[in-house]
């Protein structure tokens, strides 16, 4: 069923509905860590900007609705999996979407956020489940420490990281 999600995301790109996407959140992290509990798939996308400056995810919604996918609350249910489309919301998430990794799932190419960006985003979000995710990535993902340090520094997260490590 995850295969259906990835096929749909790749179709959104090939049909020009979105420029790029990348799986983030817990499922994104799980590409690099052990299994842990989660309830949805977070997909980061670059939305269209309206002349008024309002972020617009409507093209994705229209396309998926026309393709027969249903919405439940904030999620689109694709192949039985709740998918949450997250429009990039700051410099960090925008940069993360520009530096993704191409991995494979059931022989299909899938774009995933780099583990260093997943860590930084988790740290910036800062809820307990996010910090747990950052901890797992730090212990298991074989992070590029120089890259992580650079990301944290440029996005003003170095102090937060030191505090987190010092716990």
């Amino acid at each position, binding site marked *: *069923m*995850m295969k259906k999600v990835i096929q749909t995301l790749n179709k959104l790109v090939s049909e020009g509905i979105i420029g790029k996407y990348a799986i983030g959140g817990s499922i994104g992290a*799980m*590409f*690099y*860590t*052990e*299994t*842990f*509990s*989660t*309830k*949805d798939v977070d997909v980061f996308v670059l939305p269209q900007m309206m002349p008024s400056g309002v972020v617009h995810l409507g093209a994705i919604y229209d396309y998926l609705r026309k393709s027969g996918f249903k919405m439940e609350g904030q999620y689109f249910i694709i192949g*039985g*999996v*709740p998918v949450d489309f997250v429009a990039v919301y700051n410099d960090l998430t925008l940069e993360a979407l520009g530096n993704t990794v191409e*991995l494979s*799932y*059931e022989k299909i190419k899938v774009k995933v956020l780099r583990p260093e960006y997943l860590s930084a985003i988790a740290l910036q979000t800062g809820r307990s489940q996010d910090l747990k995710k950052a901890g797992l990535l730090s*212990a*298991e*993902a074989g992070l590029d420490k120089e890259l992580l340090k650079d990301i944290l520094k440029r996005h003003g997260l170095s102090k937060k990281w030191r505090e987190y490590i010092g716990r």
Partner: protein
Amino acid sequence: MAGKRALFKEAAKFNEKIFESKKRMRKVWAKRPMEVKLRELVKLQEITAALHPELRRLIPWKLSD
């Protein structure tokens, strides 16, 4: 007292070994293919739902066929 201290020392060593082995296993799991990890996730969710049917509605999805 000295006997107890030696026992605690042994227990600490044992704990350390268990911790190390768990850490190694976690790293092994982290390197498994995503397909395997998601199957494991579904299995964990099914076990949770079987043990706690009241949680079924909180586990609305399956990631594999």
